[in-house]
């Protein structure tokens, strides 16, 4: 894992300041969505070997939720964006 993460709000910080939640590609289904949609969201993971988007929280900094795109094999970090900005971008792309 990269030792330093470039937080869009706080600058370059050691990665120990961040807490990792998991897969950021999942979109929470509508409350009335089918059981299958909820099962996919809660339990099913693509678990790729390679590029992966992950939710991180900068708990020892700005406490913002971030989306970190990184490689699960080489541990290279490609980008760090604010999770709210990432959501706006995703919804604009729909």
């Amino acid at each position, binding site marked *: *894992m990269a030792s330093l993460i470039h937080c869009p709000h706080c600058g370059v910080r050691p990665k120990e300041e961040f807490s990792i939640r*998991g897969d950021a590609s999942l979109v929470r289904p509508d409350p009335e969505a089918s059981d299958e949609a909820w099962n996919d969201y809660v339990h099913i993971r693509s678990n790729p070997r390679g590029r992966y988007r992950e939710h991180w929280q900068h708990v020892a900094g700005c406490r913002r939720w971030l989306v970190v795109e990184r490689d699960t094999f080489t541990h290279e970090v490609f980008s760090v964006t604010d999770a709210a900005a990432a959501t706006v971008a995703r919804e604009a792309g729909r």
Partner: protein
Amino acid sequence: MRYSAFSIVKNALTGNVNWKPAWRQPEPKPYYDVIIVGGGGHGLATAYYLAKEFGLKNIAVLEKGYLGSGNVGRNTTIVRSNYMLPGNEPFYEFSMKLWEGMEQDLNYNAMLSQRGIINLYHNDGQRDAYIRRGNAMWMEGVPAELLDRAALKKMLPFLNFDHARFPIMGGLLQKRGGTARHDAVAWGYARAADRLGVDLIQNCEVTGIRRDNGVVTGVETSRGFIGCGKLGLAAAGNTSRVGEMADLKLPIESHVLQAFVTEGLKPAINHVITYGAGHFYISQSDKGGLVFGAEIDGYNSYAQRGNLATVEHVMEEGVTMIPGLSRVRVLRSWSGVMDMSMDGSPIISHTPIDNLYLNCGWCYGGFKATPASGWCFAHLIAKNETHPVARFLRLDRFERGYPIDEHGAGPQPNLH
């Protein structure tokens, strides 16, 4: 050649030049009745029991590297059956019983050492939780013993009993728990399976799963296409990648777990001890090194290497539990890729494809399960029906709402 004290003496007296390789190096045949993907402990045990207990012939194990190159050679060698939930405990006790007869069965010295495993507790709530767990074990016929502080002080005088924040108040002991030589388990199963005619094909990576009319007809590999009647996946940390070849949607994340060994010491730690205030566990190998580990690093990873922050955390936990550890030097550390399931419990199951079977989700508890996992997976493949002790370990338990969550952590693999 059958291994025995006699064979050791005889070969020693004849210059040790007559030992034969423990298994063949066969070329893959065009077709097998059963192919197992993954030549680790679970895959090799499955092939062995398929041949031995269920009478199947024409079986192959495909391994992308060398036999036992994955987690079976990377774990901290602990065997135990001190689980609480009814979906788990009978399965792990079945495994424990198989461990107890395994060396004779395989004609291989796996160095099983039932030295006892002790889970420490540090407060009243934790003591009550361990009493509950011990009672759950007794209900499945598995002896467990609660040790108070005085008993523990006598057995393990080196522990940090009076730590200000996490004083040690006692522990739960399973006397039959202990350790086994992990590589020997892989080698023993490999040799025994090979002697029953199983083809163990190394350096053979599966790159695709060929299907026709919704059933598996064979696998594409780095050594060409190999046809099969039934396919079993035992690919551990790479389960999601192999599963994807058959369009399986799996409740698995791959995480990295580190382990450590120190320089060799005189006998100092005679049990397996786990810390109740963290996830630290330690035992001493027969060679003298202290073998220990703790939590997974906490992020998805397919790399067999971990992070320094976790190394520091593990060392801190170890020194908090046993202050004397601070004067021991660590010799090596290594990592393995864990197939973490969404409830922390394993999967031995049918899949939506009729002749495709799945064995995964071992999290960081796969080693102790090796014999039972092999037996139950072989039962499932041979008879097309679930073994009674593995009946809760189904893939569809997640969508049906029946997770087996020992820790109560929810569907968050980095918390199990």
